[in-house]
């Protein structure tokens, strides 16, 4: 049985960082007056259903997509500095969770925000078909690279959870063309 020392304090930090991440997306959608139909939990995190996002310009949709990671990555430094000054251990934990979550979501692997960002940047210049091709290729390449890294870490440090996590990102790439657009 894998044992990860991840007590309630760490789980709460991750959940709060995730909630603020989704809050960033929701705030951006609200700023552009896109109605949100619902939020559901997927295997990679929360998925916001907002079909009106399709009618946003590329720039605005990019802003919505990056709003989540931006909340995490912009929160982390001041929170970390404040935590060091106040000697607040849980604050450091939360800053670390923000950083890890922000960086993770910027990976160019569907359905993460980084993949959507890449699609929007390419589609804006070369059209949606090109965007999809680049997104699929980048997603598969990045997932394979992560899986290779996970395999290396597993062999070197007996850290099987990371290989499993990487496989969790890789396997969906094999059926990528069936995915619908989501925020």
């Amino acid at each position, binding site marked *: *049985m894998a044992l990860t020392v991840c007590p309630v304090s760490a789980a709460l930090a991750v959940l709060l960082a995730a909630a603020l991440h989704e809050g960033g997306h929701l705030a951006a959608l609200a700023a552009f007056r896109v109605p949100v139909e619902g939020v559901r939990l997927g295997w990679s995190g929360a998925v916001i259903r907002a079909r009106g996002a399709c009618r946003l310009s590329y720039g605005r949709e990019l802003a919505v997509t990056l709003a989540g990671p931006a909340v995490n990555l912009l929160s982390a*430094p001041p929170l*970390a500095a404040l935590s060091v000054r106040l000697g607040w251990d849980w604050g450091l934990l939360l*800053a670390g969770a923000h*950083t890890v979550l922000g960086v993770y979501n910027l990976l160019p692997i569907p359905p993460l925000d980084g993949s959507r960002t890449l699609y929007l940047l390419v589609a804006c210049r070369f059209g949606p078909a090109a965007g999809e091709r680049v997104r699929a290729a980048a997603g598969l390449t990045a997932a394979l690279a992560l899986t290779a890294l996970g395999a290396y870490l597993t062999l070197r*440090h007996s850290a099987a959870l990371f290989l499993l996590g990487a496989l969790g990102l890789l396997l969906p790439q094999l059926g990528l063309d069936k995915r619908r657009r989501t925020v």
Partner: protein
Amino acid sequence: MKRGKRTAARRTETRAVSWGRVRAVVSGAVFVVLVALKLLLPGQLTGVRGALGTWLARDADFVAAFSAVGRAVSGEARALEDAYVAVFGAEEAREVAGEAAVELPEEGADYPEHATAERRPLSFDHAAPLDGVVTSSFGWRTHPDTGAEAFHYGVDLAADEGADVRAFADGTVGVVAESVELGKYLTVHHADGVLTLYAHCSRITAASGDAVRLGDKLAEVGHTGNATGPHLHFELRDGEDWLDPKHYF
């Protein structure tokens, strides 16, 4: 319109059936391969199962890891290294516990790379982490569990369960974590790139990032992890090199 709908429905149905067949074939093939391996190579399969069990039992301290990332964001040097150690375990610790990475020595062979009997001067005041009996010295020994010859990268100091473990010198607490081999352990960064490690503790009272002074209480003696009785496993590193701690007590 109706014909179009029927055709579309049939196409969807056909695709679903094809995927179902693919899954059935793949599952069947995996089953056949596993049965064949079990019958033809039972020893190797048992070895693989043992390795998988070891991998799955590996601990990763996410509290220490996230905290270390937070400290790295605040600008603290070497915090990312602490995050790495918290997640993957101290590399030196696996070697100290007698992992097979260490080659069996020839008679009269020197110490392994990065282990030295040299007594290097330290530029700061220091003291033994506790008053205890040295039950296992730095150097080659017969591993108490495996019986194999292995290099011991620290010293073992026997003491009563719960005895105070104190800081070797002024420094900053690095990793505070727990692993299968070291049990509850912590590291302290000192001046000039010197690092100390305190393992098999029953309780750790210092927190990652704490500034500590020589003699401050860090933990209590225990026998967590791969330990046969209550003792402190203490290591002293100067950069990449392990030093013999007995020179500094």
